[in-house]
């Protein structure tokens, strides 16, 4: 078992007060705002899982981040939490990277490192983007498992329990090395004592300045950021068989109600009613699904 890599990313703090910049192409903190960026919560869940694997397999754990100088405190937290070392790909404040060029930068760095497993969060919440993990896996040619909530390593294979539709779970296996994205609620990050944080030395964080020209160009360009919702969601008009009051209710609810034209109401003997329900559940496949 070789090194485990955890990729972390800084997102806008959900509690931070933001405003548009003058050119409407960026978002900046309001004048009295101090705390703007924080570690993506799903990345913290990935770190917790990596720490558990590190303990089990007695391996090293490297945290990597491509961000501005503000990320150093977050890397310090990761090292204080138990990471062996950290790599900070330092970009300037103005170069806010998107998922594409961040994944390319990190992939270039990881090509120089030996590792068995890469973990990262499933999403960059602030921009609602789940692309980073699959991008990085493709750049490095690794198999990927997404939205894992539990990871185990057996010799040279990885088993991960992944979150699927309807609350189902899939147990997926793949060979090492691989990239696994971790579901946001897989683990709760633990607190780190201030004493531990203070003991983290700068030697454990390797800072690599990234030249502006070395940053790969983005495939999409931001042309504008704005406040209003750009389109109104389609609302079906109230159905004709509704009464006036029901039509009004339907409009208030955004067309959510739908009067069933084929409704059948049954009353009478309990045994017959119960049988009607059972027959309906069978017809809809609910019982046979069990």
């Amino acid at each position: 078992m070789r090194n485990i890599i955890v990729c972390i990313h800084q997102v806008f703090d959900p509690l931070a007060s933001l405003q548009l910049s003058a050119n409407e192409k960026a978002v900046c903190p309001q004048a009295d705002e101090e705390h703007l960026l924080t570690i993506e919560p799903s990345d913290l869940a990935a770190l917790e899982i990596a720490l558990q694997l590190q303990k089990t397999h007695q391996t090293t754990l490297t945290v990597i981040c491509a961000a501005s100088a503000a990320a150093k405190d977050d890397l310090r937290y990761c090292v204080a939490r138990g990471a062996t070392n950290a790599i900070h790909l330092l970009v300037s404040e103005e170069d806010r990277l998107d998922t594409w060029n961040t994944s390319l930068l990190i992939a270039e760095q990881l090509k120089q490192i030996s590792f068995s497993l890469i973990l990262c969060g499933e999403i960059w919440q602030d921009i609602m983007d789940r692309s980073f993990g699959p991008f990085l896996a493709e750049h490095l040619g690794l198999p990927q498992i997404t939205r894992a909530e539990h990871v185990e390593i057996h010799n040279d294979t990885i088993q991960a329990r992944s979150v699927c539709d309807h609350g189902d779970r899939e147990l997926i296996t793949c060979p090492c090395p691989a990239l696994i994205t971790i579901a946001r609620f897989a683990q709760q990050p633990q607190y780190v004592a201030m004493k531990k944080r203070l003991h983290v030395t700068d030697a454990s964080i390797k800072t690599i300045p990234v030249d502006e020209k070395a940053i790969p160009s983005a495939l999409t360009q931001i042309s504008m950021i704005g406040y209003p919702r750009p389109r109104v969601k389609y609302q079906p008009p109230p159905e004709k068989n509704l009464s006036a009051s029901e039509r009004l209710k339907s409009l208030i609810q955004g067309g959510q109600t739908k009067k069933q034209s084929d409704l059948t109401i049954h009353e009478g003997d309990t045994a017959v009613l119960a049988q009607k329900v059972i027959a309906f559940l069978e017809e809809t496949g609910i019982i046979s699904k069990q």
Partner: protein
Amino acid sequence: MTLGDIFVFAEYTTNRWLDGSLEAIQEGARVARQTASNLVVITIGTPCADLDAVLEKQPIQSLISVEHPLLTTFSTDGYVIALSQLIEQYMPSLFIASATLTSQDFIPRLCARLKAPLVSNCVRISLGDNQRGFVFVKPTHYGQFYTTFACEQTPAFAMLLPGAIGIQPPSEYSPIQVKTFTPHISPDDIRTSMLERTKGDPRSIDIREASVIIGAGRGVAESDCWQTVESLADLLQAPIAGTRPLLDQGLVRRERVIGQTGKNVKPDVYIALGISGAYYHIQGINPASTIVAVNIDRKAPIFTHSKLGIVGDLRQILPEIIDRLQKLKRD
């Protein structure tokens, strides 16, 4: 100006097309009209015959069914290889999919392989300035802002935020030309394998993910049959959700409340027990869901939204249903 075709990736469950995919088809049709392009729907696997009837009502010119024995179950590698071969052959200008868990798994990887631009969770797609490329709008910064992205490179990929557009009744129909595409995939290409799939624990899953939900209302609390409802939920392997009064009484947790003050759910079947059907509650249920209502009041508004309405006392009907279910299970 005519661009390449507009491709829409459509997904379906065992018995219906995903609402998000129908939204993607409609958005694709709108963009295709703007660009005077053809709309082509892409499916992987063989759709059921009765599902095709839904697509026939959509403004689709053609459908490409990607078929291969290794694509019967989902694998990131298999889907990426198949669709990258398809896209390299047809070179569409735009590829749209709904941002479901499946598409969010493989589409970013597909884009990385093709070095194509991707905008995920967007709510609007339109033609770019001077009819070059496309413009995408998506919510960013936790929904505080909407960001407009422009990209001139094609093919461009977009994943639509499910539910953001709404399903409109289709306005035009045309005969669908169905083609089959068989990609070249070898078993060695697929590096991940699924060992087992387990059903989510109904007592702990997020109710937004559930396909069957048992909704309990004030009637359950008043008739003192909470334990019977729990037994029914265990038998049906369904989570229990509730209305606001049940939260106030401490019977359901906050994350299990449906409606204006709770969550919006989209189960296939919603079993409403002792729920009157106030629109604060109904608002939280997807109109596509089938509702079965049991209520003692024949005039309860819930019946107007139900497919099956049962008028009766929960204390008598529920034990009878549970008995029959247990008997069925034993048999």
